[in-house]
């Protein structure tokens, strides 16, 4: 007994376990393989399928400009993006934000990326060819390119971002949102919103949408490294609507352990960006909280499918709130 207590309090392993931090092996065995049937993976691994499914279920998504699915159609890119000010090219089966090219504006046939770097039309065509060949897709399978309209960052987030669009990651377990964080791109992450590439992760309290804690590269931060804005001021607007959108993604896919990436568009409100059947674990570092206690609590709910979205959101807001450390 004493030995067990010593282990819990004085070894790092024991303290992590006591805090309920979810590890990679446990996530894979207990949650992903148990709650995510393999047959449902294509729904989230293919962005175009996700998009069509979302439209079917009335979930808002960024506007689709076009799809390029063969090498022959690659030159079409100039024509289909002719009428729009900016656009974004994504590999349909990409993972981890790989292969996403964001074109901010087009001036006299020169394309500008969000960081102001100018690239030519052949560069864009080459990028699309790479996408089609499967350079960015899981397992190198052939892929196609999805062209979407740009998202306009909501004013509430303008002070918290450098180049990229900040997004909200929500972990939804059996239909209940359990944990969330904002991912803010910054100069050191080169405009990307992935934590392992140096983006800032901000843990968000589930009751209010207010920031709890922020980390960059595993270390706590209190201000955005580029804009110097205090991260303690960060509050996600339309918080309830965001959570409801996340819950709706569970209903439409049936994936029990799901990572939902949402953005807030200035004009269109909450939009679904993409879904992830294998969401990462860094969200725990951003929140300074373990996932396991929350997952275990949701596991005790019998027949979770009986609860409508509104009740599920209310449940999460009541049980998964956290005090701000900022």
């Amino acid at each position, binding site marked *: 007994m004493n030995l067990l207590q010593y282990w819990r309090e004085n070894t*790092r392993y024991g303290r992590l376990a006591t805090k309920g931090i979810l590890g990679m092996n*446990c996530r894979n*065995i207990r949650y992903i393989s148990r709650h995510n049937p393999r047959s449902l993976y294509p729904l989230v691994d293919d962005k175009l399928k996700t998009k069509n499914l979302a439209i079917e279920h009335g979930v808002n998504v960024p506007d689709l400009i076009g799809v390029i699915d063969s090498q022959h159609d690659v030159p079409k890119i100039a024509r289909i993006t002719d009428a729009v000010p900016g656009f974004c090219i994504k590999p349909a089966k990409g993972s981890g934000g790989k292969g996403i090219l964001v074109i901010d504006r087009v001036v006299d046939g020169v394309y500008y990326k969000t960081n102001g770097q100018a690239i030519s039309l052949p560069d864009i065509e080459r990028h699309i060819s790479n996408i089609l060949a499967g350079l960015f897709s899981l397992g190198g399978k052939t892929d196609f390119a999805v062209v979407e309209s740009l998202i306009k960052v909501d004013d509430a987030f303008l002070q918290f971002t450098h180049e990229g669009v900040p997004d909200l990651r929500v972990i939804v377990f059996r239909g209940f949102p359990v944990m969330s964080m904002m991912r803010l791109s910054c100069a050191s992450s080169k405009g990307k919103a992935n934590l392992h*590439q140096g983006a800032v992760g901000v843990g968000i309290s589930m009751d209010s949408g207010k920031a709890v804690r922020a980390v960059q590269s*595993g270390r706590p931060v209190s201000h955005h490294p580029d804009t110097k804005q205090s991260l303690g001021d960060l509050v996600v607007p339309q918080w309830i609507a965001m959570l409801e959108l996340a819950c709706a993604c569970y209903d439409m896919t*049936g994936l029990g352990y799901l990572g939902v990436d949402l953005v807030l568009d200035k004009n269109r409100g909450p939009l679904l960006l993409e879904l992830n059947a294998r969401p990462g674990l860094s969200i*725990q*570092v951003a929140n300074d909280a373990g996932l396991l206690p929350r997952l275990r609590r949701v596991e005790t709910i019998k027949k979770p499918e009986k609860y409508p979205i509104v009740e599920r959101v209310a449940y999460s807001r009541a049980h998964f709130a956290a005090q701000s450390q900022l």
Partner: protein
Amino acid sequence: MSKSVSSNRVPLYILVLGLLTAGLFLTFYRHYVFDVPWLPDAKRQIWSIEAKIEFEALGQPVKLSLAVPDSQPGFERVSEHTASPGYGLAFVDEGAKRRAEWSVREASGRQTLYYQVDMLFDQENFDDMVADPPQIETVTYAGPEETAVTQLLQRARSRSADAFTMTRELIAEFNNESQLAQLLVQQKSRERRLVEMLNLAGIPARVVQTLYLEDGRRRQSLVSYLQVFSGEEYALFNPQTGQQGQLANQLLWEQNSGSLLDLVGGRDSRVSFSIIAQEVPASRIYQEKVAHLKNAMDFSIHSLPLEEQTMFKGILLIPVGVLVVVMMRILVGIRTSGTFMPVLIALAFIQTTLITGLVGFFLIVGIGLVIRSYLSRHNLLLVARISAVIISVIIIIAVFSILAYGLGLAEGLKVTFFPMIILSWTIERMSILWEEEGAKEVFAQGGGSLLVAVLAYLVMINPIIRHLMFNFIGLQLVFMALVLMCGNYTGYRLSELRRFKPLVQGN
């Protein structure tokens, strides 16, 4: 709504337990019932050599005679047997000559016969090189041949003191006077000529066929050596270089100047040798030398033909490498590029040895990355680009081999053991990683892969592990159980203890 995958773990635990029990039972059974030792013991080393004879039978009576080895200094014959369904077999001892003779009334089509002999290596006995010298046969020469022979013999004699130095000088003369040598080897082989000339000088000598014994070799052939006598003592000479002495792993297969194989009623005959080293308990060898040995071994991989056994010697090690990868990834959390790429690299390291392997790996992958970064500028489709990388890798390997050979570095030739397709994919993945995540991630994953490969290599070359895996097939089940157990581990990886460190600091 979510369909849950079976969460009941009991069947898995029963399976693991069953595999462990069965595996350990087989292992202990082999140890206690068949006396297979836990640890390898060099003194009890037995070389099993299998001669595989293949030929095309012509639909007539077939008579086949194969020279077979006898006990000799350093090697004691413990048992021999053959596999030749339908053939009559007799062992013939014509004085010192031993031959196995097969016969059949009628045979047609491709025929395969096996002869296997087990030789016990005996270090103590190895240095007494004594045998009955052969008769001296005098050949008479005429014309230009006579002049050449006389000239060569005269020079060699003037520079030598006894039979062995004479032989060495004669071979040296053969190498120096290439024109004279050319003349002499037109009608008879170099070895035969050397024997004739030594006989002419009054030195008993003969051509012997030797086999280099290396564990796990297949499709080997015999190498001709000169056996030169001084009284009862003899010495072996390499007829090409004149080097004197017998290697500890050199077996005299045929030592009576006879032919290796005589065949009547067939054509296109071929003899190839497979060699394997086995650890067999000494007690068994001395008590029941011949017959029972094979029965005891029948329970295992040892009942297969030797050629297949040598193959299994490598295959049975793979689970060890796989377990290393599984543990490194699941328990430690090292990222590798390509799940089992490290095992394949480790297998290549076994062939090349570690330092050569590492140097080769860095050279190939390094140059490959440079070529790949150039290719990426050309906007190629993926399949074509990887194919180009594969061809580049092959060219790099070929150039290295030629350069290394030219510089006299025989080690360099071993780069051909690397799995080229796997290396190409490694280069492609690392190159993409470089473009997307930067050099740091490339070194992290590349270093991780190499670390795991080196660890797997170190485990796989361990003689005790090799001995256990080859002799106790039950261990395969134990490894299966261990891998299944790892697959069920829900605890933290070592790397996660570092990753999540900020979460428990200062508490």
